[in-house]
């Protein structure tokens, strides 16, 4: 039961990164590729109907985490207090900037909203990358299962870490680059002409950086968290994840050469999902590793909710996710294809 819920939450988080990842990515590369007002409207229209729904995966994953692993929810959310609050503020600013832009004709307001949208998107990617790296590296959990982290200490992982150190900054940079690539590929898929070309060029230029930092992140993880490889040795099936990561990256490169936007975007989805699967496989059955010698790891067994709710939960969760997939299927199918240039805006 615990294993099942562990992978359910991991899958929901992966869905969040793959889906909201591309609209965050569009925000990151926004100023680099969308030069004219028309371009910007097209870029926003490409994410307009779906970004809000994509964000729901974060809420739903958070709710599911709360439900299945209350102890983890309590410990991690209070421990990452400040960065989480900043994530909330960034999500607020980002949502408001997209909405506000569509209701104004004033170029100055547009420029302001564009800046806010792009900046908050980039910062969110950085925060999420750093957060994931923190979970992989471990946090100073105390005897009472709680912890509190300063934003930084001496910039090195170890018994007294901060939220930022060389390892988590690497995670943040990787997330920023990977989502920028993901967003470029999505934009290329949804647009045509010059904008598509610029998005493809951006992706081609980003790819080597993503490739190099991804490769660096593997030894970096082994240094920052030496026992992360144990799981891989114990369960060789876990090596599927890094293999898929490499496969996804290679597929993107190959598809970019052929200018096949759809194949490239699919490769990017596989790459992101496999990165998360790889992190999860390295952690299991730990949910949040402890560093230092105060407390102990928060594990699936220790954090798991009661058997009755989890049994009931499987029933409604399956039903609910099937419905959600149906809604998203309808939504994405209806807004399939490339957004077109036309008079009028990208709002509603």
């Amino acid at each position, binding site marked *: 039961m615990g294993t099942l819920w562990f992978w359910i939450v991991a899958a929901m988080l992966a869905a969040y990164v793959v889906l909201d990842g591309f609209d965050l990515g569009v925000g990151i590369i926004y100023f680099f590729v969308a030069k004219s007002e028309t371009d910007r409207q097209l870029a926003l*229209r490409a994410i*307009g*109907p779906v970004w*809000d*729904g994509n*964000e*729901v995966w*974060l*809420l*739903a994953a958070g*709710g599911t985490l*709360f*439900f*299945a692993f*209350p102890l983890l*929810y*309590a*410990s*991690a*959310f*209070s421990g990452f*207090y*400040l960065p989480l*609050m900043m994530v*909330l503020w960034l999500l*607020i600013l980002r*949502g*408001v900037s997209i909405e*506000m832009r569509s*209701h104004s*004709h004033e170029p100055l307001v547009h420029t302001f909203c564009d800046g806010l949208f792009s900046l908050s998107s980039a910062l969110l990617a950085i925060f999420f990358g750093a957060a994931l790296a923190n979970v992989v590296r471990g946090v100073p959990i105390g005897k*009472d*299962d*709680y912890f*509190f982290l300063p934003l930084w200490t001496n910039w090195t992982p170890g018994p007294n870490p901060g939220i930022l150190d060389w390892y988590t900054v690497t995670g943040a940079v990787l997330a920023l680059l990977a989502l920028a690539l993901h967003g470029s590929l999505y934009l290329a898929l949804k647009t045509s002409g010059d904008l598509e070309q610029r998005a493809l060029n951006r992706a081609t230029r980003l790819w080597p950086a993503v490739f190099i930092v991804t490769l660096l992140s593997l030894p970096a993880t082994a240094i920052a968290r030496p026992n992360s490889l144990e799981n891989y040795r114990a369960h060789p099936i876990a090596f599927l994840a890094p293999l898929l990561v490499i496969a996804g990256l290679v597929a993107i490169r190959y598809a970019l050469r052929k200018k096949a936007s759809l194949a490239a975007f699919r490769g990017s989805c596989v790459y992101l999902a496999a990165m998360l699967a790889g992190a999860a496989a390295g952690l299991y059955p730990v949910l949040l590793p402890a560093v230092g010698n105060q407390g102990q790891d928060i594990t699936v067994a220790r954090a798991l*909710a*009661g058997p*009755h*709710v989890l049994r*009931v*939960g499987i029933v409604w969760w399956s039903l*609910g996710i099937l*419905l*959600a997939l149906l*809604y*998203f299927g*309808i*939504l994405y199918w*209806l*807004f*399939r*294809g490339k*957004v*077109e240039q*036309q*008079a*009028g*805006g990208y*709002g*509603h």
Partner: protein
Amino acid sequence: MDILTLHRIHFAFTITYHYLFPQLTMGLALLIVVLKTLALKTGKEHYAISARFWAKIFAINFLLGVVTGIPMEFQFGTNWSEFSRRTGGVIGMPIAMEGIFSFFLESAFLGLFLFGEKRLPRWAHWLSAFLVFVGSWISGFFIIIANAWMQHPVAYQLLPNGVYEVSSFWGLMLNPWAWLEYAHNMSGAVITGAFVMSAVGALYLLQRRDEEYGRTFLKLGVIVGLISCATQIFPTGDMHGKYLAEHQPAAIAGMEGLFHSEKGAAMVVLGQPDFEHEKIDNPLAVNKLLSFLIYGTTSAEVQGLDQFPRDQWPTTLPLLFYAYHIMAGLGTYFVGIMGLAGLLLWRGKLYKSRWILWPILLSFPLPYIANTAGWMCAEIGRQPWLVYGLIRTSQGYSTHIGVGTSLFTLLGFLGMYSVLSILWIVLVYNFIQSGPKAPHEAVAGQSFTAA
């Protein structure tokens, strides 16, 4: 300031602000479905344009509801981690179910509703409006399941490590408190929607512009408003009060400012509670009314605060007393104004009676105040308990968060929400002033070429 008070203010501020938006969107969602249905049935463009106009106002409020709602879920973990750890096995379920069953539904079909009018058949566009309505009402239901369990814990078992978990799924879902609270709350949301719609209608008629739309909005707002204002008091408010008296007698005593148990207790309509000397200053009271309202007889005894040890009195009692009186007073006023407007509508005089259009226009903020006051009654009345009778509020907060950190984020939210308020007022005011017939600066639905 001590850390517990700060955490409480933090939550109170963010939840109060957040709920300004869902109460309107849940109410408007219903009214938009009515407009869409009229459009489908009559085939009149007039109703379709009306629905599109309200959809814009809905959208901005929905967005603000979403972005201010995400902090609410997070704060269970960030500021109230002990509460999350101990009760996640119970309230984690409705919270997760809200995300899975409601937010996906709402967000996906809102995308279709706002962007898809040109690319969907008419019935499908009606259906997306209907599903947005269903989604928003499901959302309200699950969050009330969570709150009702805190008000009136049922269907749980306590584990040796102090953690609570659900013992019966249906027991949790069929918590009678939840259904009462839900009916009362949703009725309140419809009141907000109806008052806002009526106010816009009244504004157009007073300004002598878009009068055709003004009449539609006013008529629909008054009819729906009259029904919801009536159900808000009877049966939902009445039953809720009786249930409260049975299960949270200290909360009722605090709301009514009843210090001493009395047979044939009077109801204080106006007054200022003096908790030092345990009396009400300048009371304006109706004799025996309280006993009658709660127990149906004028001679019944109502428990006063003196029946309870001081450490079980609701904290911030004066606020509780005023919140209740503001809620009840406004509720009475709502029935009065909507009753009067309904009567004039029935007589065919409403649109011409400018003297009633003014108060209808000016009353639009009042349901927000009443809904907020109602939630204050529920939440302050539950004090000092976080989960009634099981966990005290002082046992639920995150112990590792410093006062400075908590203050920092509270100030951050204050600043952020001040900016949002200005934005919200400007945008909604602009929509209303540009009117339903304004060309859409943003075209509903776009043309795509098939991939």
